[in-house]
């Protein structure tokens, strides 16, 4: 039988990763909402103290990694749907990867300065 080649795992890994990272980001959103509702960090001291805590830094890093992975799958899906010329699509995928890598680097720089 002739098979249409669409990749090594037909995207199942990406599909699952997108959902797991979604759950991680949803949990972080709830934590952030609770932090803001309990005692909104409205001064520089409180804001700085919030991100000085180890657990908050690690949680935010996990969010950043999840976002990069999630967006890598999602934005690629958008380009695969709408951008037909292979060269342009490849260029856009590279651009997305670079932007996401830059976001991650920037996040680490902000969290551990």
């Amino acid at each position, binding site marked *: 039988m002739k098979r249409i080649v669409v990749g090594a795992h037909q995207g199942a890994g990406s599909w699952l990763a997108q959902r797991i990272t979604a759950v991680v980001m*949803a949990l972080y959103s709830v934590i952030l909402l609770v932090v803001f509702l309990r005692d909104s960090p409205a001064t520089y001291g409180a804001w*700085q103290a919030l991100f000085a805590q180890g657990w908050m830094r690690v949680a935010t890093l996990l969010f950043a990694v999840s*976002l990069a992975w999630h967006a890598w799958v999602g934005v690629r899906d958008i380009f695969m749907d709408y951008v037909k010329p292979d060269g342009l699509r490849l260029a856009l995928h590279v651009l997305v990867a670079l932007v996401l890598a830059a*976001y991650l680097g920037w996040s680490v720089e902000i969290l551990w300065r």
Partner: protein
Amino acid sequence: MSSATAKKLRPKYLSLSALLFEIRLPLPGWISILHRVSGAVLFFPFTAWALYLLDSSLASAQDFERIKAYLELPLAKLGLLAFVWAYCHHLCAGVRFLLLDLNKGIELGPARASSVAVLVVSLAATAYFGFLLW
């Protein structure tokens, strides 16, 4: 006439005017396309903007005050409002899709009801945030 020719003759309503005025997308369809649109704008520019705001606000006390004043600008407030809507819609619609993946609420009635809930909850959250902002 062969079936292939018949296929070719089938009308395709994909002109811009057809997409805008003739094809009536059901509400779950709107939730879906808005999930994609909100995801795209969250990727860019909103993540870049959020990182800029986080970076500046954590840099020093003066920068914190500068960012606070910057976020008082009407255009910045509108940006925040759009950001909050995109985030809420993407989150709510995303939770709905996760539940659909688990075969929860896949019948027509519940699926329609949950799509209404996604739209209402995210718009209400955005409106409340706007109320706090102004």
